[in-house]
């Protein structure tokens, strides 16, 4: 160990810098975003937990079903019928993109490009 001292000091500084985010956030707690739930609808096309985890998969499936297979009616596990449409079905209940979609997406720092084409309800441009 010719340069032992320098190497070890360098390593300690490097590890300190790399683990900086952890030091900074120690003790803090993550506030789960408070979503505004639909007022006039009680049930979703799938159970809440499933939607929370898999809504993006469902939306991807819906897009292929409607556009590519021409199947535009969704029959849920409960047997209810829904029109397959982000803009006309999902957003009819979740009437506020800012209070519903954006809250989680901002917290998770994901920016899906749905709204580049699909028209969100009135509030946004």
């Amino acid at each position: 160990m010719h340069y032992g001292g320098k190497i070890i000091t360098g390593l300690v500084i490097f590890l300190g810098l790399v683990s900086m985010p952890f030091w900074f956030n120690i003790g803090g707690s993550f506030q789960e975003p408070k979503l505004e739930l639909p007022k006039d609808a009680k049930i979703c096309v799938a159970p809440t937990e499933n939607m929370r985890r898999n809504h993006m998969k469902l939306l991807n499936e819906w897009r292929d079903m409607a556009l590519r297979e021409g199947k535009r009616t969704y029959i849920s596990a409960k047997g209810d019928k829904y029109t397959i449409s982000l803009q006309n079905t999902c957003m009819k209940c979740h009437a506020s993109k800012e209070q519903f979609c954006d809250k989680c997406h901002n917290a998770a720092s994901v920016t899906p490009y749905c709204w580049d084409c699909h028209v969100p309800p009135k509030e946004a441009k």
Partner: protein
Amino acid sequence: MKQSRRNFLKFAGLSAAGLCLAPATAAMASGGGTSKEGHAVVNSNSLHAKRWAMVIDTRKLNTEEAIEALAETCHHIHNVPTIESDQNIKWMWTGSYGEVFPEQENNFPSEDQEKHKFPLLCNHCEFPSCVRVCPTKATFKRADGIVAMDYHRCIGCRYCMAACPYGSRSFNFMDPRTHLDMDKINTKFPTRMRGVVEKCNFCVERLAVGELPACAEKSGGSIVFGDLQDPDSNVRKALRENFTIRRKPTAGTEPGVYYII
């Protein structure tokens, strides 16, 4: 007890058999089949055909104003922006006889023919060259003959625009929303984003809910829409009773739009 080779082999065999059975029993326990999960079906009120086609009676529909009115309806319900430049987006537009039928032009046309304007739109070809060249299958031909676009997949390479012999495709050079009045758009239909190619879709979204294409509905009978494969359909009746031509027969794409001259 000391483990003998014989006992070890017996145990290994049993475990292997158990591993093979586990997925099968798990599948049985979950009930199997799709009945418990959500699934999608075709709308019960949707219109069906083996091959959608359009017959345009240019004896009735031949003025700039009449065609513009139809185009306006089409562009409004599909949120097609009007951009005053060569970057304009068009799903339906007009052309003179020579522009529409360049291969069938005569040197001394009739006066009527010289004055008339002809409606143009995507031809929804039997052998669409746009579909053949699309590297991502963003544009595809449906079983009912409609050449559709999946804007989620379009990467904006514009091969389809180069391949289309009819110039039916438009490229979004910029965000179309900057050229749309966002307070007046049709909120039931999406807009497009920058960098995708778009075109007329024979109103698939209207066919799915049992309505005819907007231009056919608004034309007051001068545009007939129906099933080309059904000998009793209104389209076949119109083709039987009138002389019709299609655009650019030498391109070999077999358009689904017929013009009564």
